[in-house]
């Protein structure tokens, strides 16, 4: 059985190799399509995972933003500030509030292409760090910024520390301000890895947000439901939106759905193109090998043998094109991510599987092989149904 399979595969490989230019062009075409699928898939899945990861922040809490602010999960990305007093106002006016923490969340686009941030700056009143980072620890030797310190202290994410070679004790300069790195977040979170966390006052000073914030994280009292608290806040305070966890998810869902729909559409179109390409090449191949198929038929080869042979050939082209495409696509996804974010390519390579997850690679490889095999069905049937008398008579 194994020997039969090996023999068939060897025979198919030789058939492909015999028409090496055509095979190479076909494999190259599949590889290009697969590369695009992987690049688009890896890029979108990375951003979707970041958006989804943002959902894990402020779980069970209500986020207050200004009316009209565009929010992705918990974080406002559009214009719309609130006075810093808003946190106090919420606490005073709504009895169901246990705690309200003001925050200033800034996307730093400098150095990045278009609207993708190179990093995030987050200002939080000293001592309230856990509201954002939860139990995330700092790397050994670090500490959180202290309100009493005379220095401008900042904690940076792991990816930033790697990129700029920062450790506790390093100095950095942002918009003319000298900052002292006092800690590095030990986390694999894509969002926190690219974050700089400092005191609210410092962020306001650096970015010119005088007594302004853009979100308040509100914790309900025990026994109070999020929905109930959000309604109460919106009742008592004008021109704000109080978003529960569910509402925040709903807000980002259309964005995620759009990205997923477009990705699926592009992927389908590319697979169809590959399929047409493989079918065309396989049809040309079998029309050139009519005599071979007729001979096989004449000497008694089962139709299933001929069918399997053609399918195996197209499947092998899919396998080679798929593997090449995945390799090229993974590299292209890294180049693209580096281009958009300004993060050096070398920093992406150790985490190649973070950019293009193995499940995505496997999924695309299996799909490419399956698509190639499906593309081989029509040529296989054509080869198996070939009228041997007509083919052989042509040479009598």
């Amino acid at each position: 059985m194994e020997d039969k399979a090996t023999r068939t595969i060897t025979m198919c490989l030789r058939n492909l190799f015999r028409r090496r230019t055509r095979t190479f062009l076909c494999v190259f075409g599949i590889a290009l399509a697969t590369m695009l699928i992987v690049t688009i898939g890896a890029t979108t899945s990375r951003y979707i995972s970041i958006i989804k990861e943002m959902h894990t922040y402020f779980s069970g809490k209500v986020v207050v933003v200004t009316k009209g602010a565009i929010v992705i999960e918990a974080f406002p990305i559009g214009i719309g500030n609130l006075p810093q007093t808003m946190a106090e106002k919420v606490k005073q006016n709504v009895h169901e509030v246990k705690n309200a923490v003001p925050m200033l969340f800034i996307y730093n686009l400098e150095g990045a292409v278009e609207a993708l941030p190179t990093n995030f700056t987050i200002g939080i009143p000293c001592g309230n760090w856990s509201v954002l980072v939860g139990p995330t620890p700092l790397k050994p030797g670090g500490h959180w910024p202290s309100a009493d310190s005379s220095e401008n202290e900042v904690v940076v994410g792991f990816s930033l520390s790697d990129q700029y070679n920062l450790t506790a004790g390093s100095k950095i300069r942002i918009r003319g301000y000298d900052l002292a790195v006092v800690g590095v977040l030990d986390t694999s979170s894509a969002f926190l890895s690219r974050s700089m966390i400092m005191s609210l006052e410092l962020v306001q000073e650096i970015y010119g947000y005088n007594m302004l914030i853009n979100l308040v994280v509100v914790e309900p009292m025990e026994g109070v439901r999020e929905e109930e608290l959000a309604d109460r806040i919106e009742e008592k305070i004008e021109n704000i939106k109080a978003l529960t966890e569910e509402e925040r998810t709903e807000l980002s869902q259309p964005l995620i759905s759009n990205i997923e729909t477009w990705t699926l559409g592009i992927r389908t179109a590319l697979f169809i193109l590959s399929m047409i390409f493989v079918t065309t090449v396989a049809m040309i191949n079998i029309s050139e090998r009519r005599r071979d198929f007729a001979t096989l038929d004449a000497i008694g080869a089962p139709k299933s043998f001929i069918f399997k042979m053609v399918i195996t050939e197209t499947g092998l082209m899919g396998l080679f094109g798929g593997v090449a495409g995945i390799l090229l696509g993974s590299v292209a996804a890294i180049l693209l991510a580096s281009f958009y974010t300004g993060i050096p390519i070398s920093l992406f390579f150790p985490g190649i599987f973070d950019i293009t997850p193995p499940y995505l690679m496997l999924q695309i490889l299996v799909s490419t092989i399956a698509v190639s095999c499906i593309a081989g069905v029509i040529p296989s049937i054509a080869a198996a149904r070939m009228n041997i008398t007509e083919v052989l008579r042509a040479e009598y």
Partner: protein
Amino acid sequence: MRIKTEDLTRKFRVGSSEITAVNRVNLEVNEAKFIAIVGPSGSGKSTLLSLIGLNDHPTYGKIFIDDTDASLLSGRERRKIRLSRIGFVFQTFNLLPTLTALENVELPMALAGKPQKEQREKAVRLLKNVGLGDRLSHRPRELSIGEMQRVAIARALANDPEVIIADEPTGELDSKTAKEIIGLLFDINRKLKTTVIVATHDEKIVEVADTLCTIGDGKLKVEH
């Protein structure tokens, strides 16, 4: 294997006209005979061989294989007979170009499900018998025309067929090589008791044949 035809007829439609390639042929082929079918090009020799070799279906008339009406056989049964009981030799050899001489000979045995070791041993032996013991790993394009036809004959013998059907086996060969191939087919017939049916123009084949048939306009006549 005995082959018998009754009013065997095969018509083809070419455009609006109908051509009768084989016309009411009655032929009986007994075991271990060497039969030559001669006739000019387009006389219906190849069509007749195609029908006898179960590669084609008659328009009407019957073919009996050991008293079994071939029209009652399923596609799978016809295929099985072609694979295990009939060997084919074509004018243009029809070797698979991507396989070596050895693999071309092994192929029918592999299709018949014989063990790999047996395939290899037998293919080597057959190729040695046709004088190609030193050409085992050569691809068809690396062989001379005569050598290719020898490989084709070895392939035809792979599953120990009872009948070899050869369609103009010397048509592409020079006279010296043609003589060698005729000698080979004659030896197979005499030593292995394999029936050989040859469509040919070659007079040398006619000389060695037990039965000579002539065909013209699809009609067959048994000469001796």
